């Protein structure tokens, strides 16, 4: 089967400093992929580069294919039709992506005009239907509301409604719930899951919260310093991470049940792209690092069924910490 999206060798540098080093990632139609990693690891840049949304001083190379057709470096007119159409993206802060001087109805209407050619009554009826679909309370009245008149959760719903206007095959949600309270976060995650079921669209969920991603996604890719360092089915990753960085992220996450244990903090911080260490970028923070790790960059290789890791000394596949109970 042709993947919906196939990214290969995607590299990005800003003024000579490499932020992305040949990322390979693909997504099947309808699949939900989670992308995790500390801030600055390249999660947003990966998708901004893929959709041609980076500023001119970014040097981008590699390949991004949408159902086999190359879109990296495609003409602006092609990308304009694509974005908000077959591929939609929503961000952490809906207030900054919504136009403050236009009503919600007008903004969804514009997307419908552009991507679906709807006008007049049909356009407004569809805008209302989309607001209903995303669970906006009192949708008819909310069509004439401005973003500042809505709460953070309602604005995020409006953003999602706008993203759905072009009937996307792929929705990229970049930290969509980070700014929201936990009960509203739960509502939005539930909404994304049910929309995926209804529309069959694929989802990329970018988050720094592994808990959020693990629950919503089938597969998870872990990024560090501009590279994918591990890729695995969501539950398998939690039960038995193979890359020490993935293990570190999981160990750093406090749990809500089970016995309390000391968190395993990852020492140090994400390296700045201008000061990338030689070899494996994680080696300076890695408890398992050996001399080989500074000598070369480990490639992302198969370490099990549907699992890849980029480590010279991947962790054993048997859950060595069976006591780390996965929540029921």
């Amino acid at each position, binding site marked *: 089967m042709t993947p919906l999206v196939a990214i290969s060798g995607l590299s990005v540098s800003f003024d000579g400093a490499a932020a992305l080093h040949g990322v390979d990632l693909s997504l099947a139609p309808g699949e939900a992929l989670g992308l995790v990693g*500390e*801030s600055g690891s390249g999660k947003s840049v990966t998708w901004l580069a893929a959709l041609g949304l980076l500023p001119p001083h970014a040097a981008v190379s590699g390949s991004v294919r949408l159902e086999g057709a190359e879109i990296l470096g495609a003409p602006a007119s092609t990308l304009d039709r694509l974005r908000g159409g077959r591929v939609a993206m929503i961000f952490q802060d809906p207030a900054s992506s919504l136009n403050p001087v236009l009503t919600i109805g007008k903004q969804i209407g514009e997307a419908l005009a552009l991507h679906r050619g709807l006008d007049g009554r049909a356009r407004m009826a569809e805008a209302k239907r989309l607001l209903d679909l995303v669970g906006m*309370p009192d949708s008819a009245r909310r069509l004439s509301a401005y973003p500042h008149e809505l*709460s953070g*959760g*309602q604005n995020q719903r409006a953003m999602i409604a706008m993203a759905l206007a072009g009937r996307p095959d792929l929705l990229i949600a970049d930290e969509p719930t980070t700014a929201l*309270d*936990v*009960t*509203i*976060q*739960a*509502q939005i*995650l*539930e909404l994304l899951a049910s929309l995926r079921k209804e529309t069959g669209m694929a989802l990329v969920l970018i988050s*720094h*919260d*592994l*808990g*959020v991603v*693990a*629950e919503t996604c089938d597969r998870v890719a872990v990024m560090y310093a501009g590279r994918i360092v591990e890729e695995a089915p*969501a*539950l398998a990753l*939690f039960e038995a991470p193979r890359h020490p960085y993935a293990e*570190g*992220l*999981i*160990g*750093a*996450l*406090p*749990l*809500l*049940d089970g016995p*309390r244990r*000391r*968190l*395993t*903090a*990852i*020492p140090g*911080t*994400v390296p700045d792209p201008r000061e990338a260490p030689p070899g494996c970028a994680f080696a300076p923070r890695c408890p398992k690092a050996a001399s080989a790790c500074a000598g070369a960059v480990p490639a992302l290789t198969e370490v099990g069924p549907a699992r890849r890791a980029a480590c010279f000394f991947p962790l054993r596949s048997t859950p060595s910490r069976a006591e780390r109970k*996965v*929540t*029921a």
Partner: protein
Amino acid sequence: MTPLLEAEGLARVYASRRGVFGRPVAVRAVDHVSLRLGRGETLGVVGESGSGKSTAGRLLLGFEAPDEGEARFDGAAMPPPGSPEWRRLRARMQMIYQDPLGALDRRLTVAAQVKEPLDIHGIGAPEDRAARAAELLAATGLSARIGARRPHELSGGQRQRAVIARALATRPDLLVCDEPVSALDVSIQAQVVNLLSDLQAELGLAMIFISHDLRVVRQISARVAVMYLGRIVEEGAADDIFARPVHPYTKALVSAAPAPGKTGKRILLEGEPPNPAARPSGCAFHPRCAVAVPRCRAEVPSLADLGAGRRAACHLVAPLSGQEAA
């Protein structure tokens, strides 16, 4: 023994304007908050934004005077904010905020800022203070090399360590931390949480740890209070309260918390977080509560002792002993 910190019926009312031309309405940011904190204890405070956590923290440290009720520190009433008595007390109570950059002076090195409170409060001989500052930095995992830098030259986690080092300079009895790790990545968050736990155990600090993240609060606290629209709606032992929440709001919070491998239906709360300027009648949670009965609309439930160290404010909750509520 008297508790280190005690609050009785604290309330704080702000005048809030909706829109530029709106008439000001009274917002009870904190309402009827009573709690006790013993020496060396950690109380976690959780709740969604606007539930009054930060306001409660400011009232407990006497940064603001309550409109009703009283806070007592070490058995004595909290002196008025800004008074000489209050300034003297400040050495014994410290606050740590979410944004360390805002709390630090951009022009001074981190070491100089850690030393500053020693000068202000005249702690130790002047010639020993630089060494003491270096000791504090080391205790929070910062080298002398990092101490020589200015705040913007540090990472977020290092800045928060510097703020903690400075807060500890006066050997306080009480630390109030308001969302201290919320802006940090989970890996760095774990570093700071471990640091706070260690310092707390070593120094016998009492701590109020405010956060919207239930997982972090459980990790660091012995006891937890859950706030909703200015009131404490449930309180109990950290290990117990999230395992067996009794208040419908705590249940919803626990159910909403993301966790790997979580399956089964969530309790999804209907609607938006409430607006403190339009506080619902009776139990403020009733419009979002799945089990509300008519009484909940009419009558504010009081925070009742359920036994086993648990308190909850809900008309439908019976004592934990299993006996019928009176």
